[in-house]
């Protein structure tokens, strides 16, 4: 067992061809997003589509450019589920409360 472990020393991190392929996919998805902007969809639908595509792009960047695919799986388990959990909690509580404020405001306006 070496002192350096399996961490940074000499792990395979993909080929230039793979990185170029990822780059082209990222650029193509960006082009699709700009096309959505050009044709102008209804705002809520558009925002949903854009966020889904952006999450896909973020996944590619994290997996290949940030090498998470080549780390131990335990690193992914440490980082990704906790991040998703925190964002989900934000969505649940934030939107619920902001909706409540909006409804209260409407009721006051009706009085």
């Amino acid at each position, binding site marked *: 067992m070496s002192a350096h*472990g399996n961490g940074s020393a000499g792990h395979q991190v993909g080929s230039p061809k793979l990185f170029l392929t990822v780059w082209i996919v990222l650029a193509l998805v960006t082009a699709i997003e700009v096309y959505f902007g050009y044709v102008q969809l209804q705002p809520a639908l558009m925002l949903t589509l854009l966020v889904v595509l952006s999450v896909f792009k973020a996944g590619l960047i994290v997996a290949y450019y940030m090498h998470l695919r080549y780390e*131990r799986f335990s690193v992914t388990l440490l980082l990704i589920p906790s991040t998703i959990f*925190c964002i989900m909690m934000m969505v649940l509580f934030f939107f619920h409360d902001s909706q409540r404020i909006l409804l209260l405001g409407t009721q006051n306006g009706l009085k």
Partner: protein
Amino acid sequence: MHETTKEAPLGGLWSGGVAPLGTSSKKLGMWLFIVSDTLTFSAILLAYSYLRLANPDWPRPFAFYPAIIKSTGMTLVLLASSLTMVFAVAAAHRNDRKTAAKWLWATALGGAIFVVLHMTEWIEMFHEGYTPWSSPEGVPLFGATFFGITGLHMLHVTLGVLYLAFIAVGFGRGKFTADDVEVSGLYWHFVDLVWMFVFPMIYLMSIHLR
């Protein structure tokens, strides 16, 4: 190497020390910073999304040409700088210090071009009457979210350019290890990743209606 009764050998999955989870502690530290920064950006982008959808009169100041074409160009510059960063990390792992430093400088240059383009865009918007506290349409929240979110991102890019320049100089002179280059790469890719959300959510959601 130095096995004591209290410490487990280094490199084990749960042994901690300099390589927790088989990752260098610097790299894991950067990852944990990135997670916390992700939550910062998530919070402001969620708040923005709510305001954007709750307000039917949200300003749409960006014409498809030139504003959106320009910001698409900025996106491609940042995306290209991520690719040069990947090559810098690969060269650093081959211990090719000269090539790695060259790619690092190319990455920093991409970041600098991005900041310059972004600043010219900000100045144009100031001239059109958009400030962080007002807009010609009378929706000050547009300015607050636009300048707040893009400003926080631009701060990250600016600090990233300085960070990369520091690593490029040091690594070129034989100072840092390949791991340090990889850690700076993690930060840079994260800055790129955040823009992948800011560009569609802010710009493409505010395109001028024909």
